[in-house]
């Protein structure tokens, strides 16, 4: 078994200093009823982003839509040669609606890469990735990243309906074993997922579990990780103003030495040790 909770330097190298830059929209299209995929052309240093990091996007102000804050978005795909980044985002409120209204050729101010990305277990142990909803956008780049470092990757993707499952083919192409569970099919209950994790652990000798996008999935992963003493990380969300660690609006509570401390999702996260995260 893997030495748990020892992030390697490979996954979180020296923090790449963030920059503010204008990105050009290359394409921006719906992938299903709720999500859009946007690819942008960025300066070279922005492509130094690692999976789990995010960019802080200054969505444009249009007549009726006047988002004030930037919006944090996980980097969904990183293509350094093409100097291209992609974001997979759910069209929700003011900011993401203004984002959805952008057309190829328009530019758009971003700050990043920000935050701490995922760590991989110290040797090439298999990992499992659990994602639901928006969590998928955050988890997707971990798959090629872990594969390229020799980890076998199993992805369990959860959604309300099969229609809302995204990136399944892509993740398979990237070399993951993909299992899908949905509410509609009655396969997404946490008990089922927990059983799947146990089974995978038994079969593959998992070295790490990664989760994002669902409180209940996180709790399930925590139970499994605690029982099996398994390394794990969770990517968390919180509303952000500065994105840089200055304002302390993005804090969440974490367990530390039997007490509760606040950590900033933008700075100490958004990826945190799985067992320290508290439910929301």
């Amino acid at each position, binding site marked *: 078994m893997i030495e748990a909770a020892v992030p390697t330097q490979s996954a979180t190298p020296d*923090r790449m*200093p*963030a*920059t*503010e830059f204008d990105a050009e929209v290359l394409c921006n299209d719906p992938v299903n009823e709720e999500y859009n995929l946007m690819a942008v052309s960025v300066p070279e240093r922005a492509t130094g982003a690692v999976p789990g990091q995010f960019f802080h996007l*200054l969505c444009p102000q249009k007549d009726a839509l*006047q*988002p*004030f*804050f*930037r919006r944090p978005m996980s980097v969904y795909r990183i293509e350094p040669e093409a100097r291209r980044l992609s974001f997979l985002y759910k069209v929700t409120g003011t900011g993401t609606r203004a984002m959805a209204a952008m057309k190829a050729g328009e530019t758009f*101010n971003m*700050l990043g890469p920000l935050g701490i990305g995922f760590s991989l277990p110290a040797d090439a142990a298999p990992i499992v990735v659990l994602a639901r909803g928006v969590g998928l956008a955050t988890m997707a780049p971990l798959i090629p990243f872990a594969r390229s470092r020799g980890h076998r990757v199993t992805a369990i993707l959860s959604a309300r309906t099969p229609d809302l499952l995204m990136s399944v083919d892509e993740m398979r192409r990237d070399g993951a074993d993909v299992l899908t569970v949905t509410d509609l099919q009655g396969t997404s209950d946490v008990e089922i997922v927990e059983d799947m994790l146990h089974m995978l652990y038994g079969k593959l000798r998992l070295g790490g579990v990664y989760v994002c996008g669902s409180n209940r999935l996180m709790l399930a992963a925590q139970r499994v990780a605690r029982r099996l003493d398994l390394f794990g990380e969770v990517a968390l969300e*919180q*509303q952000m*103003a*500065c*994105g*840089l*660690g*200055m*304002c*302390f*609006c993005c*804090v*969440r509570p974490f367990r530390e030495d039997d007490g509760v401390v*606040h950590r900033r999702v933008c*700075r100490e996260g958004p990826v945190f040790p799985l067992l320290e995260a508290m439910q929301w």
Partner: protein
Amino acid sequence: MVDLSVDCGGLRLANPVMPASGTFSHELADIIDFDRLGALVTKTITPERRLGNPTPRVAEVSGGMLNSIGIPSKGAAQFVAEVIPLYAAFTAPLIVSISANTPDEFAELCRKVTVPGVAAIEVNISCPNLEDDGRAFAMRPHTTLQVMQKLRAATDLPLWAKLTPNTGEIPEVAAAAEAGGADALVVANTILAMSVDIRTRRPTLGKVMGGLSGPAVKPIVLRMAYQCVRSVGIPVIGCGGIMTAEDAVEYLFVGCQAVQVGTATFLHAGAMLDVIDGLEAFCRDAGIERVSEIIGTLSSSAEDGGMVWEAIA
């Protein structure tokens, strides 16, 4: 080359632009060059450790933001030991912002942060005074005078008093702060406000009410800065809604000696530097050699200070 330097509250600043407390931390040095700033101002600290308020702690509103961060604080000892040294590497003077629940605790903290490396102390008297029913010290002239006198006795460092806009008596409070020994005034903190998420029927802030900042407050705080300039002899540092150099110029015209930039840094990490560059360009284009020459040069035919309420329709 335009000379951007100004005298401000016992210090000579390389330029009149600095961060507003709570919207700045050493982490920003990853992105901008601190040595270009007029001063560095830390987040307010309190004597004791505190967690701060429940989340959500911020909300966006039309033309601005609400915050109810509260004052998560490491406490004075850890601040002096760990945070102050982080700023030793920078040339811009360090201003430490403090606050406490009673005048005596406030003075005690003031004494504790009077240490090498600190150039001036910003006293956030916009915070609640437990001895006055939780009203902010700076809501009234007499509580302002009282706390300022105790603070004055506690340190020889320049004292900058940060006023609250949540009062109907800003000129009187400003005068009281001066009488109590302030070397400069920072006008102002955030304006108490709230908003409601109509989908959930809940206040958008966990704490219900919070402070409004950003462009929306600029006309209100600019007015207060103008009133303070006219009621005291010490420098006034304008702080409220400054997003661009043009906004800063407005504050300088009404007589502010310097400005603090808060919320703008959340939208553009380099906002303060843009303000500095813009100020320089403004002066250059106007053929002005020293930025200090434009301070207080508002030209106005209606300089009568009385009966300002008539102004309101």
